[in-house]
C-alpha cells in the first residue's frame, strides 16, 4: 500500500467525516423547538401573512429533503445563512473574527508546546526525583482547573486589583494607536487570555512528554548510547527527546478539538473579539444560524488539522513507509 495508499485513505476518511458533520449539523438544528421565522421576528405585530411570506423566502415551506438540498447547495457557495442578531450573512460575521482567534490560538499553542515539552522532558529524565513529583503535581493541578475559572481569577487579580493588564478586548478603545504602538497594545491585551489557555495546555504536554520520555528511557538504544560513553545532554537531546516527540506530534492534532474549548472560554472571559466570543454571543441571543456556522467552522478546522497532522506523521514515522 505504501505512503500513497496511506494518504489516499486519510483524505477519503476526512471527506467522509466532513459529509457526516454537514448532515449532523442539519439534523441538530431541525430539532430546535420553536418556529425559526418567529425566532427571527419576535415582534407580535408581524402579521401571519408576512410570516408565511418569510417562510417561503427562506424555503421553510418545502419538505425536509428539499430543505437539505437547498442547505447543501448554499454551503457549496459559502452561504451559511443570515445571522439573527447581526442581520448580516453568517460567513461575513465569522470571517471578520477569525484573525483575532488565530492570533490567540497560535500564541498560546507555541508557548504551551515549548514550555510543556521542556518541562515534561525534564520531568521524565529525572523521573522519581522530587523535581519530577513537583512538576507532575503542578501539571495535574493546572490541567484540572477549568480555563474560564482560571481566566476569572487572572482577570480579578491582574486586571482589577493589581491592574497591570487591561480588562479585556483586543485594543485600547479610541486610542488611535498606529504602527509599533498598536502592536504593543494588542500584545498587552493578548497576555492574560493567552496565559489562561497556556497554563491549562502546559499540563497536557508535560504529562504526555513525560510518559513518552519514560517509555523511551527504558529502550535498549539509550543503554547503548550510555555505554558508548556519550554525554548525558547529548543522549537527552539526540536519542531520547527526538523519539519521545512522535506521540507529542500526534496529540497536537487531537488536542485542537480541546483547544477550541479553551478558546471559547478565554475569549468569553476576556471579551477577546474572536470566534469563541461569537459562540457566547450567539448563545445569549439564541442566534441559531450563527451558532451553526461557528460549529461548522470549528468541526471543519479540527478535521483538516487532524488530516495535516496525519500526513506529517506519515512522513516522519518510518514504519508507515516500510509496512507498505
Amino acid at each position: 500500500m505504501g505512503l500513497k495508499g496511506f494518504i489516499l485513505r486519510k483524505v477519503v476518511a476526512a471527506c467522509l467525516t466532513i459529509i457526516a458533520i454537514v448532515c449532523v449539523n442539519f439534523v441538530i438544528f431541525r430539532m430546535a423547538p420553536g418556529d425559526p421565522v418567529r425566532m427571527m421576528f419576535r415582534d407580535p405585530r408581524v402579521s401571519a401573512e408576512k410570516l408565511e411570506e418569510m417562510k417561503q423566502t427562506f424555503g421553510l415551506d418545502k419538505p425536509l429533503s428539499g430543505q437539505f438540498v437547498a442547505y447543501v447547495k448554499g454551503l457549496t457557495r459559502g452561504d451559511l445563512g443570515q445571522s439573527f442578531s447581526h442581520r448580516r450573512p453568517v460567513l461575513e460575521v465569522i470571517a471578520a473574527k477569525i484573525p483575532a482567534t488565530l492570533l490567540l490560538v497560535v500564541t498560546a499553542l507555541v508557548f504551551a508546546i515549548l514550555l510543556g515539552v521542556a518541562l515534561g522532558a525534564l520531568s521524565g529524565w529525572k523521573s522519581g526525583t522530587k523535581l519530577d513529583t513537583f512538576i507532575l503535581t503542578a501539571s495535574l493541578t493546572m490541567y484540572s482547573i477549568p480555563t474560564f475559572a482560571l481566566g476569572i481569577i487572572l482577570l480579578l487579580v491582574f486586571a482589577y486589583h493589581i491592574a497591570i493588564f487591561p480588562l479585556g478586548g483586543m485594543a485600547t478603545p479610541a486610542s488611535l494607536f498606529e504602527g509599533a504602538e498598536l502592536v504593543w497594545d494588542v500584545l498587552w491585551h493578548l497576555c492574560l487570555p493567552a496565559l489562561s489557555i497556556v497554563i491549562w495546555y502546559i499540563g497536557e504536554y508535560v504529562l504526555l512528554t513525560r510518559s513518552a520520555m519514560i517509555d523511551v528511557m527504558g529502550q535498549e538504544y539509550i543503554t547503548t548510547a550510555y555505554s558508548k560513553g556519550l554525554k548525558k545532554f547529548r543522549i537527552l537531546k539526540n536519542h531520547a527527546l527526538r523519539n519521545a516527540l512522535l506521540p507529542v506530534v500526534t496529540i497536537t492534532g487531537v488536542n485542537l478539538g480541546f483547544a477550541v474549548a479553551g478558546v471559547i472560554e478565554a475569549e468569553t472571559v476576556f471579551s477577546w473579539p474572536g470566534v469563541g466570543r461569537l459562540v457566547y454571543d450567539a448563545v445569549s441571543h439564541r442566534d441559531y444560524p450563527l451558532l451553526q456556522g461557528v460549529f461548522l467552522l470549528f468541526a471543519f478546522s479540527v478535521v483538516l488539522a487532524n488530516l495535516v497532522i496525519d500526513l506529517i506523521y506519515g512522513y516522519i514515522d518510518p514504519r508507515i513507509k516500510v509496512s507498505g
Partner: protein
Amino acid sequence: MNQFTNKLEKMKIFFKLLFSHRMGLAGFGVISLFVFMAMFASFLGTVDPARTGAVESILQAPSSSFWFGTDDLARDIWSQTIFGSRISLTVGFVAALITVVSGTLVGLIAGFYGKIVEEVLMRIVDFFMMLPELPLMIVLAAVLGPSMWNIILVVSLVSWPTTARVVRSQVLSLKERPFVEASRCIGAGNIRLMFGEILPNVVPLMFAQAVIMITEAIYAEAVLSFLGLGDPTSISWGMMLHYAFESGVIARTMWWVIPPIMSIVALIVSFSLLGTAISDVLEPGYKEKKGF
C-alpha cells in the same frame, strides 16, 4: 460462596491500596466532604438559594447574617455554594453512569463480534471523537433548552465514545484468552460469553473510566452553565459565575466569585487525583510492589 469471598477479598485489597496512595486518599477525602455537603445541604445553616432578599441586603460582603455575602438579587451565597454541590455531583455521577454503561456495551459488542459489526460501530465512534466536544455540547444544549437533565443528556451523548474505544481494545485481548475458549467448549452462547465471562474482567477498567467521566461531566456542566446554558431554576456553581459575570460588578464582589471557583476547582482536582490513584493501583505489578 467461595467465589464471593474471593471477590470481597480483592475489593478489600483494592481499597487498602487506594487509601495508602497519597493522591487517592486526598481526592477521596475532599470528595467525601462535598458528598456530605450535598446530602445534608438543608442542615448546614442554609436558606433557599433562589430566594431573593430585601433591597438593603443586595451585594453584602460576608457577615454574621450572610456567611459568604449576597449577590445582586440579595440571594445568600453560602446557600448557593452548598446547594451547588448537589447539581455538580448529580450531573457528574448520572452522566458518568450513562456514559460508561453505554460505552461499555458498544465496546463489548464491537470487540466481541468483530468484522462488519465492529467496523460500523468503530467508525461511528471515530466520527464522534473527531468532533470538537465543547462546541457540540453547546450546540446541543442550546437546541434542547436549558435544564439539568438536558445537560446530563448532552454530556453523555458526547462522551460515550472514549469508553467504547478503551473497552473494545480490552475485549479484543480478553476474547482470545483460554478461559473464554474453555467456556465456549462447554457450550456457552455469545451472550453468556460476553456478559458472564468477558464483562467481569472489564469492570476495573469501567471503574477507572467512570472517575474520568465524572470529572469531565462536572467540568462540562460548569462551562455550559457559565456560558448561560444552565438550568435557571437550580443555581449551580457555573450559574453563579455566569450571574456574577453578567452583573458587571464582578470586580468589587470577590466573595461572590471565590466560593464557586474554589468549589469547582477543588472537586475537579480531587476527582482527577482519585483517577490517577485508581489507574496506578490497577496497573499490573503495583499490588506486588506494595507487598500484597
